[in-house]
């Protein structure tokens, strides 16, 4: 599931990552591609619009296009917004303080309520070792109660049904019956209904009023199109449901409904149903889905780590220094320490996307022991030497080498690398404004 969006975003990010700079036009193109992908995936039109507007506002508002890492920043913004859209935190089955816990499942015709009822019952029964019973409150569809009881009996679940009563009475009777027999959890399966069918909506509201369920779950077909948000919204207005069971995710649906609904209705997708078998039922993890769609969870961790260790004000000062050719070893070691705070180089590199890793590694060619040596050499310098590297002459080099347990050759190499870094950084840096800071290696 969600492979379509994952592939689209991977493709898009790959394209923009390969650009050093990102022009406003590039951003427009990227946003158009995101728009197309989301609409093809049935994300609601209005949600897409808002999503793109947010990304654009943040991208332009923070001047990130002019920063030195615009692509990374844009990707981060897209990710933030995606998580915001999907909602975060997953929820498991929950139970009332005093048993029995009553669940009620509602939804349109054909979304899979009866199947979901059995799956949820089986899920709770196995995971929490509770006694789960179900009530068949669909009196409209021919043989609905029989479908439920046939399936339930296969899985050792008891069913209450009464072909001669109305749904409100059935629900109340069933609840009574199971209360007496000491059931832990009771799940009420209701008839499919259109959200615009006033009589049917009143009926389900009446069941709610009568049995006061602990949780009302809307069962929604994952293949639902643009109307998904309206359907959910109208069910919510009438019933204030607690969450959603998303069904038929074993189709090749692009799952846009999952992305839109939480955003519009502010109710989480709690469970997903992914196949014909009763076990094909699970808790939904929106955050994992977001990283999956974006195919880049590790890079995010990396960006977050960098955000934590790099002091923006210092970075800005350094940038000025680089421009004026005043960068010194104090700055150099500061930056190096920041990076090392993020973890070992191996670990940092492992967080890069696969396609970038080899490129970076071939340019860097450095391991932690080398960083240790550099730090030792800088530590052996006097304050004057650190601030004014150009005063380091032959005898100073000897002293530094001796102090750090390295050779004069190593010190020479460091000085050469340092002056190269200065040159390179100067090229990247341009006067005026907020540019961000490119790490020296």
């Amino acid at each position, binding site marked *: 599931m969600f492979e379509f969006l994952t592939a689209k975003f991977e493709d898009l990010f790959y394209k923009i990552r390969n650009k050093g700079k990102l022009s406003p036009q590039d951003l427009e193109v990227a946003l158009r591609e995101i*728009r*197309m992908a989301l*609409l*093809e*995936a*049935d994300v609601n*039109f209005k949600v897409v619009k808002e999503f793109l507007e947010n990304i654009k506002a943040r991208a332009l508002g923070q001047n990130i296009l002019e920063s030195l890492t615009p692509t990374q920043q844009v990707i981060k913004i897209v990710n933030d917004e995606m998580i915001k859209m999907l909602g975060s935190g997953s929820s498991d089955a929950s139970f009332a303080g005093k048993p029995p816990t009553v669940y009620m499942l509602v939804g*349109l*015709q*054909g*979304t*899979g309520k009866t199947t979901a009822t059995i799956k949820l019952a089986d899920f709770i029964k196995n995971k929490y070792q509770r006694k789960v019973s179900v009530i068949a409150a669909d009196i*409209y*569809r*021919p*043989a*609905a109660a*029989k*479908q*439920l009881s*046939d*399936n339930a009996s296969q899985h050792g679940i008891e069913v209450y049904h009464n072909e001669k009563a109305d749904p409100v009475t059935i629900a109340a009777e069933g609840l009574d019956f199971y209360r007496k027999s000491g059931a832990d959890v009771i799940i009420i399966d209701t008839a499919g209904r*259109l*959200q*615009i069918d006033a009589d049917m909506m009143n009926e389900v509201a009446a069941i709610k009023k009568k049995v006061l369920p602990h949780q009302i779950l809307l069962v929604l*077909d994952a*293949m*639902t*199109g*643009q*109307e*998904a948000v*309206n*359907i959910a919204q109208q069910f919510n207005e009438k019933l204030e449901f607690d969450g959603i069971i998303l069904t*038929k995710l*074993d*189709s*090749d*649906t*692009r799952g*846009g*409904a999952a992305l839109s609904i939480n955003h519009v209705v502010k109710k989480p997708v709690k469970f997903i149903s992914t196949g*014909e078998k009763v076990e094909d039922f699970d808790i939904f993890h929106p955050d994992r889905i977001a990283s999956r769609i974006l195919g880049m969870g590790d890079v995010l961790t990396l960006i977050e780590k960098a955000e934590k260790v790099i002091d923006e004000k210092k970075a800005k000062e350094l940038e000025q220094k680089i421009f004026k050719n005043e960068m010194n070893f104090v700055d150099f070691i500061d930056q190096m320490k920041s990076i090392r705070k993020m973890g070992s180089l191996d670990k940092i590199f492992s967080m890069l996307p696969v396609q970038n890793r080899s490129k970076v590694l071939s340019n860097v060619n450095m391991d932690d022991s080398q960083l240790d040596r550099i730090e030792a050499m800088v530590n052996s310098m006097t304050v004057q030497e650190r601030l004014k590297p150009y005063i380091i002459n032959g005898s100073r080099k000897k002293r530094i080498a001796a102090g750090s347990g390295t050779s004069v050759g190593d010190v020479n190499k460091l000085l050469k690398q340092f002056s190269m870094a200065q040159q390179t950084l100067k090229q990247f840096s341009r006067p005026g404004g907020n540019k961000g800071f490119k790490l020296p290696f």
Partner: protein
Amino acid sequence: MQKLIKNLNFIWNKFRRTNEQFWDEIEEQLILNDVGPQTTSLIISSVRQETLSGNINYIDNIKELLKKHLLDIMEEQSADSGYILSDKAPTVWMLAGVNGVGKTSSIAKLAKFFKDKGKQVLLTAADTYRAAAYEQIDHFAQVLGLPIVHHQRYSDPGAVVYDSLEKAIAKGIDIVLIDTAGRMHTAYNLMEELKKIKKVITKKISREPDETLIVLDSTTGQNAKQQAAIFREAVQPSGIILTKTDGTSKGGIVITITNELKIPVKFITSGEKLDNIEVFDAKKFIDSLFS
């Protein structure tokens, strides 16, 4: 449906304000009706082209143009299609589709449709998989007073179909309607089973089923296109039954399906009553969007 009509009228009225906004709003309406972003942009760009080259800038004319364009797409496929009854009895129709789209309800509605025309109808319960699937279709058979052929749950659906056709031939039945189990188009084995059912029919009556109809839920979004494409690959459907049009979804995806996959819509259903079925009328369908 009412909402769309209202919105479109509202848009037409605003037309003179700004051109760009006008087209944006048309786009929004088409997409909100599940026509899909690609088809929408194709339709809009070709209608725009025509308005430019023909120097058309009256709202009503553009409205007509858009309507005509959509109608052309729908009619290209369905102009002479109608539904097919065989000269040689029995006519055999098979219905297929993913879970929960309304196959069994559609079978019941078709059965009533033909019974009302004085035809001898036989129902075939070839969904041997879902619990109580037989009881559901049997309920309709009883209500309509129609014969039905079924086997036990989990038996071979091909065998049910074979028996049913035998019976139909022996008893001089006019139309056999075959209900199959809902299956995800992504489930390879189940799609193979469907191919097998079709083969059994073809062998028994020495021709393909007169209609192989895929049932699509109008609530479904862009995935309906995938469903249609994969069912087409497997059983080459002759048409579509669009269900649940009494809801708030319009089933705009069938415009894309007709355009890209060339499968015509043949019937449309719109409610829980057995009469809620109509032969698809492209003009009415499009007109209803713009009236």
